[in-house]
């Protein structure tokens, strides 16, 4: 219980800090708040207009005052409109979030689907041919950044063979074929390094577990291979990979910018980056906060879940 409260307090502090920093960030931009004003009202801003905009954005208040106003807006859903196109920021984020989440989910599933069996078999037949090839491949894949992989995939499937339209045309789940076509290449690009990382983690842990005593005992008492691998050895080895996958849930939603940008999918990463380039500061603020919140909350849930599953964690943390 104390652990839970501890984590909760930490969570709240982080949330406060993140929101506070982003909400006051407008003031400290180079060029000052005048730049923001000029962007909102365009060329030919009169001083009255400037004052009105500053008031609207809370720039004329104290730091705390601005923060309070910002939080109020955020919590009531009054997120305002973009400077230049007058689009509701809320609907922009609401449209972008599902895309990033799709990519994240599909990439995780795809990578784990391959990583787990390959890792298990590699650990089982450690040093064998399969293992060697598998590890080498993973290592190579890990070293290939996604901005190299993405254009290669694109060249192969969109230019040479024209199976997939480029740029990707987003389609919702209701149109499964188009949906698949829109997401398959970005998901593969993201999944490749994920797979490599997961595979190595699980393999290493499996190898360690397979060498432990209780496995030797089980084997000695005649438990079958399949049972050993899946029932006995797998469970304890999952620690690292599950942690990693869980952390990635939060990290991937905002972290696939390059892939989104390349395949022109309007996910959260792309939205944020485009907003940064267009100097749409409020949009950037809300995007960053949403992404940070997702990340932080997911991590919090993971921590609590672990503490609940494994009492050692609770005790270990408390002691330091």
């Amino acid at each position: 219980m104390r652990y839970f409260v501890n984590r909760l307090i930490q969570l709240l502090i982080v949330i406060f800090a993140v929101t506070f920093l982003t909400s006051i960030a407008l003031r400290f931009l180079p060029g000052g708040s005048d730049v923001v004003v000029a962007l909102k009202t365009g060329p030919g801003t009169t001083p009255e207009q400037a004052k009105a905009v500053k008031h609207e954005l809370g720039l004329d208040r104290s730091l705390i005052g601005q923060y309070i106003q910002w939080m109020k807006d955020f919590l009531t859903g009054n997120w305002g409109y973009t400077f230049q196109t007058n689009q509701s920021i809320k609907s922009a984020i609401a449209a972008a979030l599902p895309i990033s989440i799709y990519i994240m989910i599909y990439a995780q599933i795809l990578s784990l689907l391959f990583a787990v069996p390959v890792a298990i078999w590699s650990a089982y037949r450690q040093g064998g041919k399969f293992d060697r090839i598998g590890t080498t491949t993973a290592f190579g894949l890990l070293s290939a950044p996604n901005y190299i992989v993405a254009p290669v995939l694109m060249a192969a499937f969109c230019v040479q063979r024209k199976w997939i339209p480029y740029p990707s045309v987003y389609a919702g789940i209701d149109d499964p074929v188009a949906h698949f076509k829109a997401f398959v290449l970005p998901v593969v690009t993201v999944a490749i390094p994920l797979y490599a990382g997961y595979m190595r983690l699980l393999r290493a842990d499996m190898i360690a577990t397979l060498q432990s005593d209780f496995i030797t005992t089980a084997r000695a008492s005649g438990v079958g291979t399949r049972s050993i691998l899946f029932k006995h050895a797998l469970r304890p080895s999952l620690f690292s990979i599950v942690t990693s996958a869980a952390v990635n849930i939060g990290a991937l939603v905002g972290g696939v910018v390059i892939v989104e940008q390349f395949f022109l999918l309007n996910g959260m990463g792309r939205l944020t980056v485009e907003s940064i380039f267009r100097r749409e500061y409020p949009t950037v603020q809300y995007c960053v906060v949403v992404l940070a919140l997702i990340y932080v909350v997911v991590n919090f849930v993971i921590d609590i879940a672990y503490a609940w599953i494994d009492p050692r964690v609770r005790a270990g943390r408390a002691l330091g």
Partner: protein
Amino acid sequence: MVHIRQRSSRRLIAAALVSLGLVAVACGGSDKNSSSVTAGTTAGTTAAAPETTAAATATTAAAPTGTEAAAPTTEAALKPVAGGSIVMGIEADTSSPWRPSEMLCAISCHQVIRNIYDTLAMPNDKGVPTPYLAESITPNADFTQWTIKARAGVTFHDGTPFDGAAIADNLTRAKTGALTGNVLRPVDTITVDPADPMSVILKMNTPWAAFPYSLMGQAAYMASPTWLAASDNDDALKSQPVGTGPFIYESYVPNESFKMKKNPNYWNKPYPYLDSLEFRPIPDALNRRDALKSGTIDLLHTTNGETIAEMRDTKEFPMVEINNQAETGYTLLHVTQDGSPLQDARVRCALAYASDEQSIIDTISAGVGQLASGPFAPDQAGYLADSGYPLKQDMGKAQDLIAQYKAEHPGPLKLSLATTQDETNLTIAQFQKQWFEEAGIDEVTIDQIDQGNYILTAVLGNFQVFQWRNHGGWDLDQQYIWWHSSSSLPVGQLALNFGRIKDPDLDKLLDQNRASNDPAEKKTIAEDVNKLFAKQCYNIWGAYTIWGIPHKADVQGIGDFTLPDGTKGADGAGIAGTFPMMSVWRGGQ
């Protein structure tokens, strides 16, 4: 130890091969686009017939229409059919609300919004402004007063009647806009004619004979006063434009699509033909081309040389080329910045001599484009094949000029070139850097500015050398706001005269042209302006812009429309590179 070493080096090689394997898949065969040269290739690139003086018109510049790729079947023989929809890929999304006086409107914006808004006038195929939404546009004897009469029987999409009050409302608002306000600067008062509610009287503070030219562009988009009033306080409403045009706003998702549907009560029968339109911004030229090839869009517009060259060779997608009253691509110089070496004409001309624009056209633009000798394209008033501007690279001369300057001004010469994030522009900038350094500039830095800031940088004057594209139109008067010293403001303030040119000779010529009604005189004035630019090297001219509009074979009627008075409309419809969609239809295959 040995074991590890072996494993590692094998790992290394194997891992490398894995990724190369990915590469091999992609690069199997260097299959390029099929290039079958057909009889239908267009020949519209090179200079159109040299300009001919207008005969019976009040203003200058005859304009041969842009040429069209002759499809195997003559399109003239086919009759338009109503129905169908079209998706067009455009260059960019417009990052501003859709209110005429507030729009930061570039070509893509005009291409979209001119289907919702009509302008008061449109050019006919001779380049003469012809009343379009207006019934008539008449001056008084000395051009200090103009009367615009609204066409009868026209209503906005929301039912508001189109009358003198509507025109007055729109023009008054236009006067407050950044761009449009500058265009309408000579306008003193705008009042509805007390004797005729359909007419508006504008009093000018200076004789403005060329006024109708300004009624073909953004300053004359007519939006519904009801909507304008309602959206004054409603930000969301600002992006849902209401006009009198052939299409009615349906939906707009920024960076994705702008949809509109047919206006069944459009006043200019029989237009429009199509049932619905969708515009998709696809900034990357290659993406746009691929979208057309894969069938996702039905047509697109592009200035990308490689795409145009490729489309000229492709039979599958006929292409219309619009190059009349074209814009010119050029490099802008900031000429009155304190302490800048560009204040000296020798330095500017040295840059001009150092540039080898023709080779840029040949290599980067795949040979598409005509070398520009000045701001005016072959069918614009003032065009001169030889304006005195150095068309060929002469590095020796450039080095001489710089040496002269340096003799008088010791100390390192530094320049900064501003360009966008776009790779092609960067490539050009890198060549420029090389040329300028070879000419003798000690240090040239390249400053890549993201798109959102690029225009702001120009407008504020925070640059020395800047890549740009502008100066479409027919009459010299349309360039007034870009070149007159009254549009020049100190750095840090927003001004349309980006280069801050303050040249009394230029001012005099521009003012003369504004007041003149004599075609011969105007032609001479425009040519003088051309020569002045060449002598002063205010800008480094690049190439005249060509817009290619490749489309699916069953898309017809691009650029082929008739004005209400029966004359044929110009392809570019008054705004370089755009064309109205109302005459476009599908079928005939």
